[in-house]
């Protein structure tokens, strides 16, 4: 760890064992992942304390035992539920990251509509559709009747709001976790938009 760094939330000294972290985007836009990467060169310091397991940043397809899961995106279809369950089962701490994971977010704006009407309009009766048919290949995950936040289906340990949470918010949160402190977010770091 560089001794002349002045950020108040700098990491603690390098531990012997790194924390294993899994990340995923369920029904998310990956904006939270992009914002996480906005920690820029602090990523190098972070990687002295964590190792990535399943994540879009690695190519690990299935999650092994992990310490932390960072999950953006809410629950829109059956596959989202499977992935969420896998991460909950394998990770000791689960963090709902961003508006979608916390309250359904943008995809949840369809919740006052009937999902059948949505599918029928898009694939059958909508403008410009000809010879439409609703895809039913078994490989396609079916959408849930409503979009749900993560805590409707599994226990969530922490919430990191934002759309997306800023890089500084991620940094503050992860610094706290790594140091063993209960995370808190001050004015400027906590926002819902």
């Amino acid at each position: 760890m560089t001794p002349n760094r002045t950020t108040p939330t700098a990491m603690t000294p390098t531990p012997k064992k790194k924390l294993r972290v899994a990340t995923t985007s369920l029904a998310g836009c990956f904006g939270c992942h992009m914002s996480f990467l906005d920690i820029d060169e602090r990523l190098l310091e972070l990687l002295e304390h964590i190792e990535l397991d399943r994540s879009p940043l690695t190519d690990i397809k299935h999650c092994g035992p992990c310490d932390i899961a960072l999950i953006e995106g809410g629950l829109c279809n059956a596959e989202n539920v499977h992935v969420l369950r896998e991460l909950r089962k394998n990770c000791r701490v689960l963090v709902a990251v961003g508006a979608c994971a916390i309250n359904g977010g943008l995809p949840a704006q369809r919740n006052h509509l009937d999902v059948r009407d949505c599918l029928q309009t898009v694939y059958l009766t909508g403008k410009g559709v000809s010879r439409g048919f609703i895809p039913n290949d078994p490989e396609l995950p079916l959408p849930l009747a409503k979009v749900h936040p993560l805590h409707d289906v599994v226990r969530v340990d922490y919430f990191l709001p934002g759309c997306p949470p800023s890089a500084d918010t991620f940094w503050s949160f992860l610094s706290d976790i790594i140091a063993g402190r209960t995370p808190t977010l001050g004015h400027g770091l906590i926002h819902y938009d």
Partner: protein
Amino acid sequence: MSQTFIFDGHEIPFEAGQTVLMAAAAAGYYIPHLCYHPEFAPHGSCRVCVVKVNGRPTASCTWVARPGDVVENNTQELTDLRKNLVQFLFTEGNHFCPSCEQSGACKLQAVGYELGVLSPHFSPIYPDRPVDASHPDVLLDFNRCILCELCVRASSEVDKKSVFALSGRGLTKHLIVNAESGRLVDTDIEVTDKAMDVCPVGVILHKRRGFAVPIGERRYDRRPISEVDLEHQRTVREGGPL
């Protein structure tokens, strides 16, 4: 020597008729609140301003201060309670901040930030609420309504119009407009009405005026609501320009 009461251990003065919330604000202490507006009589519906007066929980916006009252405000119990009430509101309505025109200038959001609310905690209800875009200059997005009735009071007491009212009971309680069609365009609302200015959240909006203020410069971006609100209350108290 003016009369005083004890507020979080501090002796603070009050004028006859001032509520605990008002007197505390005058003394520089912010009590989180949503449905209170210094230009209107207190309402008492959001309950976020609950304090303990002589051990009894009560809304500080409606409790008229008495000499010797002992008021607790900044306790863990009350902070947790207020957090939960904000969570109740986020659970009840459809509060999607990222696309809301009021974001950054919204009291519900700012009080959430102030209290450190990170999630709705409960399972969001996702009610089916309408948007009324019938009026050429005003948009009503009922998804965000917290039933504070400020628009009802402003329209009736200041604009002398009665454009808004509350209808229904319990969780189905909702804002309605004064028109048989149920549409705002059939009422006598005007953009200069006081009712256009008082909504603490993003229900009553001027059309063609969305996202005009850059992020970073919105009402609660630079300073927390605790500071901004005390200043607003002082301005009203001293009768200055709003």
